[in-house]
């Protein structure tokens, strides 16, 4: 083999890991015999080593910061969208609360009419609901948006929403007497504030869950 282009090509093939076994042996055999080619090959390998010895340079300090500052600004709404995407639980909770409270408030607004849960034997005078003397109401009694006067007996829980419990004597002559209200054989609950009202609803909700469980 002559020391021509072919040998040099083989050298470069070798450096690129691109030689067949055969070519590699061919190159090796030639290099053993030819000093000039040996030198050439050595110089090639040495220049690569020298090249690799070049110091690594590092990017200047603040490089990243500068790049970030020079990026086109992202749209504002994208920022919010990203935030919501990154906090799905918070987002879901926020939506839930907004819907729940708006629902409750509308319900509260709509509920301004006087309602009584039971009608039998009960007298309604204006905004006052009277359980007359001698009458016994079986079961729970709920009065919304009205006052309640109990002269008889209620066999169960009484709930007053947005109203007052009037004493027997009070309404008759205006004096505040310590006369007891009629008999309530159960719990008495009075709900005035909106939050009490919410609590009352939640309470009912949980009670219904538990009673379902029973």
């Amino acid at each position: 083999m002559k020391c021509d282009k072919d040998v040099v090509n083989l050298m470069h093939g070798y450096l690129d890991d691109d030689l067949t076994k055969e070519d590699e042996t061919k190159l090796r055999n030639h290099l053993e015999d030819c000093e000039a080619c040996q030198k050439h090959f050595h110089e090639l390998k040495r220049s690569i080593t020298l090249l690799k010895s070049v110091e690594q340079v590092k990017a200047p300090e603040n490089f990243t910061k500068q790049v970030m500052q020079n990026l086109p600004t992202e749209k504002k709404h994208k920022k919010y969208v990203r935030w919501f995407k990154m906090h799905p639980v918070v987002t879901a909770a926020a939506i839930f609360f907004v819907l729940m409270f708006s629902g409750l408030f509308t319900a509260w607004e709509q509920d301004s009419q006087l309602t009584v849960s039971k009608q039998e034997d009960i007298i309604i005078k204006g905004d006052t609901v009277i359980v007359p003397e001698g009458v016994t109401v079986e079961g729970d009694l709920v009065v919304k948006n009205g006052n309640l006067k109990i002269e008889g007996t209620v066999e169960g829980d009484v709930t007053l929403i947005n109203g007052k419990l009037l004493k027997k004597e009070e309404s008759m002559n205006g004096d505040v007497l310590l006369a007891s209200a009629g008999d309530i054989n159960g719990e008495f609950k009075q709900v005035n504030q909106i939050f009490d009202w919410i609590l009352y609803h939640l309470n009912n909700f949980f009670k219904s869950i538990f009673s379902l469980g029973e």
Partner: protein
Amino acid sequence: MDLMIREKIKQVKKGDQAAYEDVVMYYQDKIFQHCYRMLGNAHEAEDIAQEAFIRAYVNIHSYDEKRKFSTWLYRIATNLTIDRIRKRKPDYYLDAEVKGTDGLDMYSQLATNERLPEEEVQGMELQSYIQDEISNLPPKYRSIIMLRYLEEFSLQEISDILDIPLGTVKTRIHRGREALRKKLRHV
């Protein structure tokens, strides 16, 4: 690491600018170094490297996730450096006539530096000598030699980065090595 970058790129594509910071942080040294070796000048290298990252961000949607991000980024950086080299070339034309002289060109303005390469090496730090010799390679060889030996890409990856056929990469790396050999044999 690749997985982390892949994830960050996905976030950037969705419009998350903050995720890009980690990407820049991860590649800043590599890209800066690449630009520095291509341009031989730290100031210009910083300019171009920044520009490369900004271009990559702006065009992130044209990045195909099936390919390597580094390949894509290097391609942007390489193209920008080559553009820069082309643009500044007119300033350096040595055979341009010097104004106000009669037929004298820039060659006549150069000091004769007929020093032997050995002397040159002695007068200069080896490191900066090598850097100079890299800078003196024609850009099309320089980029390949650097990608191969300083950034250790495979020939196939280089062909992807520069968007030239593998055969051309082989021819150029061959010539580039020969050119370097001639310059560094005296060291």
